[in-house]
Each structure stands twice: as C-alpha cells, then as structure tokens.
C-alpha cells in the first residue's frame, strides 16, 4: 500500500472513494430523441420526455447502452446479464420529473478495476459499479436578481456514473485514477471527458482513520471540483482539516462540503439538510434488459487499443521510455499526433521530446487543444527534420516553433524568412571566435587555468554574437582549437 506523504498526517490515513460522472457521446439523449449536444439556446433541446411533461414516457437509447458496456469492459467490470432502471426520487428545480432515472441495485456494470501507474509501480483500484443514468438540467444564478433560471437542455443527457471502491489512499493515487480513467474513456470514444463543459464531473468521499484501523472513519463528501488538480487540492485540504480536527480531540460530522477554488478550501454546505431518502424503486416505464454473453463479446471485439496497451506498444515500436510513452498516451489526440509525426520519418525520440517539452507547453499556454494546433504533426516533423539535417540548431528551433504556432507557416518558411539557417561556415565562425577570445581575456585565462565552465561561457558569447545561428558543435571544436594554441 502506498502511504500518503503529508506533514500533518503521521498517525492518520485517508481513505478516498471517487464518483465520476461522464456524459456519453451519443447523438440523442438517454430516453428521448432530443439532441444531446452542449451549447444550444436555453431549453431548445427539449421535448415532453426530457421536460418531464405529464404523460411522457422514456425509451432507452441503444447506443448509450452500448457505450456503457464498452466502458464497463474496458474497466474490467462484470457486465450484468440482466439489469434494470430505477427511480431516484428527490425534489430540485433542475430535475423535471422529481425523480432521476438511474440504476440502483442492478446496474449494467458491476465490480471492476483499473490499473494506475504510480511512482513506485502499478496499482489496481477497484471499481464498485458503472451505471447509466440521466443528467439533470442546469440552474443559473449569476446576474439574476430575484431568482434562479432553469435550462433543461442537459436534462436527460446520458451519464455513466463510475464509482470507485474506497481503495485510494493518497491524493496522487486519486489524481492518477482520474487521468487514467479519462484516458480510457477518451480512447473508447464514449465521452469527450471535458471537465470545462461538464462532460466529466467528479465528487469525492473521504474519511480518515488511525493507521492500522480497519473501520472507516466519518465520511465527508466533497463536491464542486472543476479540475483534476482541484480534486487533488481539495482532498489534500480535507486530509489536513480532518486530521487537525481529530488531533485536537474534536469530532467529524458526516456532511457534504463544497470546494472553493479561489480560497483553496472546502466549506460545509450548511443548507437545511433534508433527510435524504431517495425511495428507489424499479422504473415501471422501462422494461428489464438482458445482455447475452455473445452480445457482450461482440461489443468487446469493438474495443479499440486501450491506453495501457498503447504505452507498451510505443515503447516497443519506437524505443522511447515508458515514462515518455505514458505521457504521450494520456491524451489520445496527443498520441495520435505523435504517431503521425513519427510516420514522417523523423527520430521517434526527438519527436517525443519536442511534443512533450515544447509543443504541449505552448499549446497549454495558449489554451489550445492539440487538435486545434496550427502546427500539424507533419509540420512538426518538418521542424525536426531541419534539426536532423543541421539546417538549424535545436536552440533556433525553439524560436521557430512559436512562430509556426502563431502563423501556421511551415518550419522551412519561417527559417527562410527570418534568415535563421545555421552557420556552418568554418571561416566565419573562426572570425567570431577570435573576436570573442580577444574581448574576454579573463574567460580565456580561467579556461586555461582549468575552469571547464569557462568554455561554456565563451561558447555562449559566440552563439550570442551569431544570434544563435552558429552550429554549436563547430563552435566548440574551433574554440578548443584556438584556445589550445
């Protein structure tokens, strides 16, 4: 078991379970033919069924079920032979029928697990269930003076709720669980898992207990976390808060707390707690469902290569490290991009480095997804090729890339326009080297007295003089030759 590392911990151990809701990427909603897309005019994507108008009835979207089973299989779940839907009854203005059609005791996907890669090796985290349910509408509060507004476009959109076992013991495990889960779902193309659009949402249950204790402590539910980092921070905050309470001899209350991102803390909802009694019962408007083993196997055959498989394949095929491979594979689009660039015939290792340490950084800064990058995989390969054939140095290339990203021009075009072609003219470099030696007697002396780092300084000066265009290998050679004299 991986132990949490925290200053405040010590005697206590956190136990974490995660509940993830992902919107399935169907065209229509779970129980009606309304478009499931995000971003329509308020209440436009509604019909009597998803508005819950009296008399309307649900009919299950077959594709949503297929996607749920795909996800279940990829998460090693036991896919049920028989399952049904239940009503979860509660009142809230975003819930048009005052019940949510969900799955209570016979979910489509039962026990499963997923494997996360941690610093000290892989770990299996159990999955309790992954069931289908309908989403609720959306409430708007901001900018409304005397009330809240309701938009039911999202009501009835298919969700898969994936519940983990309380087998997560550190914030790092929680983070890895989420990124791994997201990668799997994206690879399956069952959800875009975009947290900003709300197509992936995560709630956490956390309790702490004295180390060695088997019984779980008082459970606190945390909601309102808008990124995986926020989940990690909120959990860390809770671990410290709960440990603090117990260390001071206090008692924890079972409650729901909301994460406040800007303040970096959780706070109790303190709303009037209605006794939660959801009064689940079998949904009489939907019939039971069966899945033959043959049908399940047929769906299994449609599973694409999953992230873990791809990580191994990239290591094997391209000779990159497992660490780099995992980082490339995490986002399917990045892995696709990587493989497309390697296909252009450039070094697989260079391509990996350029994507991981340069391209993704720039894109993140600009808030662009790799799919939206103005530099295509082919175009990035063009840049790498210029490095490989010594047209430009790696250092110059680092300046070329942002220009390519900004303009969409090819590496060749940028290099040509800006006159960035690498200087390999020995005569020219010699002239600059001599000039630098003359101007820096102290540096020369240091070098001769055995201070190796002085060489770096002198090389740097030469590069500066040539605006970075001199071939660094040649500069080194010529400098050493001249200084040895």
């Amino acid at each position: 078991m991986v132990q949490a590392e925290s200053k405040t911990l010590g005697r206590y151990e956190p136990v974490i379970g995660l509940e993830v809701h992902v919107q399935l990427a169907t065209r229509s909603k779970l129980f009606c033919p309304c478009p499931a897309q995000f971003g329509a005019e308020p209440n436009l994507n509604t019909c009597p069924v998803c508005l819950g108008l009296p008399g309307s009835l649900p009919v299950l979207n077959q594709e949503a079920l297929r996607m749920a089973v795909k996800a279940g299989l990829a998460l090693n779940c036991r896919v049920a032979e028989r399952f049904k839907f239940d009503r979860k009854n509660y009142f809230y203005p975003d819930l048009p029928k005052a019940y949510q059609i969900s799955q209570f005791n016979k979910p489509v996907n039962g026990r499963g697990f997923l494997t996360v890669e941690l610093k000290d090796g892989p770990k299996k985290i159990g999955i309790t269930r992954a069931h289908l349910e309908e989403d609720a509408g959306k409430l708007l509060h901001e900018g409304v003076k005397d009330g809240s507004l309701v938009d039911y476009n999202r009501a009835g959109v298919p969700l898969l709720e994936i519940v983990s076992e309380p087998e997560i013991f550190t914030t790092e495990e929680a983070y890895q669980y989420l990124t791994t889960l997201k990668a799997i779902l994206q690879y399956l193309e069952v959800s875009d898992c975009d947290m900003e659009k709300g197509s992936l949402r995560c709630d956490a249950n956390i309790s702490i207990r004295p180390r060695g204790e088997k019984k779980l402590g008082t459970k606190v539910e945390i909601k309102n976390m808008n990124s995986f980092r926020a989940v990690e921070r909120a959990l860390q905050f809770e671990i410290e808060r709960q440990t603090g309470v117990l260390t001071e001899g206090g008692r924890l209350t079972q409650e729901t707390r909301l994460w406040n991102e800007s303040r970096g803390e959780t706070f109790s909802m303190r709303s009037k707690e209605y006794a939660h009694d959801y009064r689940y019962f079998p949904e009489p408007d939907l019939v039971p469902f069966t899945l033959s083993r043959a049908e399940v196997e047929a769906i299994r055959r449609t599973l694409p290569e999953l992230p873990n498989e791809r990580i191994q394949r990239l290591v094997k095929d391209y000779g990159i490290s497992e660490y780099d491979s995992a980082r490339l594979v995490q986002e399917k689009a990045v892995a696709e991009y990587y493989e497309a660039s390697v296909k252009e015939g450039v070094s697989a290792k260079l391509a990996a480095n350029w994507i991981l340490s340069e391209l993704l950084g720039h894109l993140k800064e600009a808030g662009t997804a790799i799919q939206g990058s103005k530099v295509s995989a082919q175009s990035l390969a063009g840049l790498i090729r210029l490095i490989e054939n010594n047209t430009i140095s790696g250092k110059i290339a680092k300046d070329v890339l942002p220009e390519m990203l900004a303009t969409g021009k090819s590496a060749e075009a940028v290099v040509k326009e800006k006159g960035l072609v690498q200087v390999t003219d020995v005569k020219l470099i010699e002239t600059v080297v001599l000039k630098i030696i003359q101007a820096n007697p102290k540096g020369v002396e240091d070098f001769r007295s055995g201070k190796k780092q002085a060489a770096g300084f002198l090389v740097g000066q030469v590069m500066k003089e040539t605006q970075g265009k001199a071939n660094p290998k040649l500069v080194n050679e010529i400098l050493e030759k001249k200084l040895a004299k």
Partner: protein
Amino acid sequence: MLKESIRLAAREGAERIIESLTQRVREVDSRVNAYVQFDPKKIQRSQTKGPLAGVPVSVKDNICTRGWETTCASKILEGFIPPYDATVVEKLRQAGATIFGKCNMDEFAFGSSCETSAYGPTRNPWDLNRVPGGSSGGSAAAVAAGEAVAALGSDTGGSIRLPAAFCGVVGLKPTYGRVSRYGLVAFGSSFDQIGPITKTVEDSALLMNVIAGHDERDSTSADLPVPDYTKALGRGVKGLRIGLPREFFVKGLDPEIEKSVREAARIYQKMGAVIKEVNLPHTKYSVAVYYIVAVAEASSNLGRFDGVQYGFRAAHGNLRDLYFETRDQGFGEEAKRRILLGTFVLSAGYYEAYYLKGQKVRTLIREDYTKAFDEVDLLLTPVSPTPPFKLGEKLTDPLTMYLSDIFTISVNLAGVPAMALPSGFTKSGLPIGMQLIARPFQEETIFQAAHAYEQETKWFKQNPKL
C-alpha cells in the same frame, strides 16, 4: 351511438351530430357535470377522412390534448396546456375523429366516485343524488346521458369499469400494453390503461380498432398485431368455457347484483357456454397490494407537480415555499393521502415490508389468473359489490371507498383485459354491471361473449330520464 353516428357522418358529415350533442350538453351538463372542459368554439372539426368520419369523441381529462387544458381535475394542473397529443388522441385524429370535450374525473384518477374532482362531482344520470362511479365518471356519465357519442377513460384499478357499471354503459380495460400510455398522465404506471367507454359492445370494438396498437414511444407497449375487433362480434358463445370465481361471490355482495350476474351465467349456459366455478384464492389481498404498489408509483409520478414548469404555482417566498405551498394548495385531500401513503411505503426501512411484499403478492395474484385460465376461457364476475351509492356516502371513509374496487383491482394487478357491461337494473332502477375477464390480449373473446349477451338482453336500449 358510435356506429350509427359513423354511418350518418359518412353520409352527410358530422355537423348535425356535433350540433345536437352540443345542444344536449347545454341541456343536461349543468346537472350531470360530466365535462370539465367543453367549449363549442374550441371544437376543431376533423378534416381527415378516416373510419370515424368526423364523429365527436370525448376524452378523459388525464389524456393530453394539444392546445387544450389537461388538468386531471386537479387545481395543481390549472392552466396546463400540453404541447402535444397523447398517442390515442393522435390516433383518434388520424381516424378522423373530432375531439369533443374533456371529461370530469376523480382528481388524478384517485377515487371510485368521481367526487374528488377539483371541478365538483359528476352525478349519475340515472339518479342525480348518486355517484357515477370513478374515476372515469365524467366519461361514463357523458355516454350514459347522451352527452357523448363515445369516450375514452383510463383504468388503474377499475376506473373505467366501475363507472361503466354505475352508469349502465360498456367500459373496456384493455390488456396492459395493448393501448399506448404515451400522453396519459400517469397514476400507477404498471397498471394504467386507456380504454373505450361506449353505449354498446360494438361501439367499444370500433373504438378499440382505432386506439389499440404498438407505440414506439411507450416501452411497455406490446408489439402485437391488432385484430379487427368487430370480427369477434356475432361469433356466439357455443363451447366457450366461462368461470365464476368463488371469491367474487362472497358476503358483502349486494343480492340484486349477485342475482343479476348469476342470471347472466344462466343466459350464457343457455346460449351454449360451459359454466364452471373456479378459484382466485388471493383476491382478498388485491386491494391491499394495490394500495401499496399503485400508490407508491403514484407518489413518484406526482412529484413533478411542483409549480416549476407548468400548472398552478402558489404564492411563495423562497424555493421551499414554492414546493410545499404549491403542492399543499394544489392537491386535494385524496391526492395527498395517496402521495403520503406511497411515499411511506417506499421510504427507508419500509420498502421491503410494504412495497416489495406488495410486489410479491402481486405475483401470486397473477398466478391465480394464469391457473384459472387453464380451466376456462373467460371469467364472469360482478363489477362492484354495491349499486351506485349516494354522493358523500363514502367520501369520509377512504377505506370503505377503496373496497368499492374489490372486484376490479385484481385485473389491473394481473394486467389482463376486462369489460364491464350492463346486466340489468336494481328494483329502484339503478344500473347493474357485470364483468368479463379474459387472458392477456384476448380482448376478442370478451367482445365475442359480451356481444352475444348484449344482443340477448338489450339492456342498452334503456336510457336515463334527465
């Protein structure tokens, strides 16, 4: 009557029928109160050529009609104008019917007397001091009083059959899944069925031909071909095995009713049917099961009436008030009683003892029917233990009211089809009904036997004097 109206309308259009019907409503409905919504200006004459030829059909007010208020006779749905038609209404329109008016009912179909309507009780056309039965009391009274050619009702525990019996008309509760529930405001989703209420058995078959059939918008709709039900008429009953369930002829059954039903059995025998006694041993539990399971479903189905999107919204301060006040002021007493009961039987700690137990006994009741139908083709029973009772007589004692449905409820628990049809009159001139119950999807057998009896007895020729 529907058949005659279709003939007439096919010949000269439906205008004269609509006019004379409108006239009749003006004459008698202030006394009967069969309609919650009737406005000659709103009647849109059908432009569609179809088997119903423009003939007006009335619809219970829990069936959605686009552009017409659909209130379920509840204050909470005041002003709810559905933006869509129920499948049955769509089918009626496609068949060329004209939707004539919306019929009164017990609020949300909760009742056996049609007294719990927010729009005042409907009265029995045979005796205005008596109830027409519920919950489709408006539909049945309208047909009986000549204010409707034919009507649609809905039946969750007897809501078509009891008023049909009390008003001396024909009411069919089809097999669960035979008629689409899409657009029927749900009460007990696993029980509810829409069915025709008509003057004659043939009219019932004509209307069933239009409304029955598979609907892809209703997951519980059966994908089976719909026969021409009128073909079953005139087949006679020779060799048909008809069972009399012993549990239906027990203490508490009015002697006049018992006599009437036994007389019907004798007539059937005379016509060549084989009569035998059968057992439905769990019948005595049916009311208890129903008031757990159907009411649990109802409590959930009625959650959506909260004043957020449509219908009545009470004056309120905050969100909590919006819910609590809207629902408190919007629902009548019986609705509240059932919502509370249904909420209770599903609540934590009671689910197994009540709801699950109810579902299990429901299985036993279904099995009773399966076994009985191994022996017979049809069951013949009374519809109600008593003739129509007086207004207010049972209103204060809900349990007594619930027991009025003792002979109709088990049919909904089993999902089988059943028809109530006139079988005579009490000495004081009140209608008596009898019930024919068949195997699932064997409505034809009911039509066959009901028609044979009706032709022999011709009770339908008698009309209330209003």
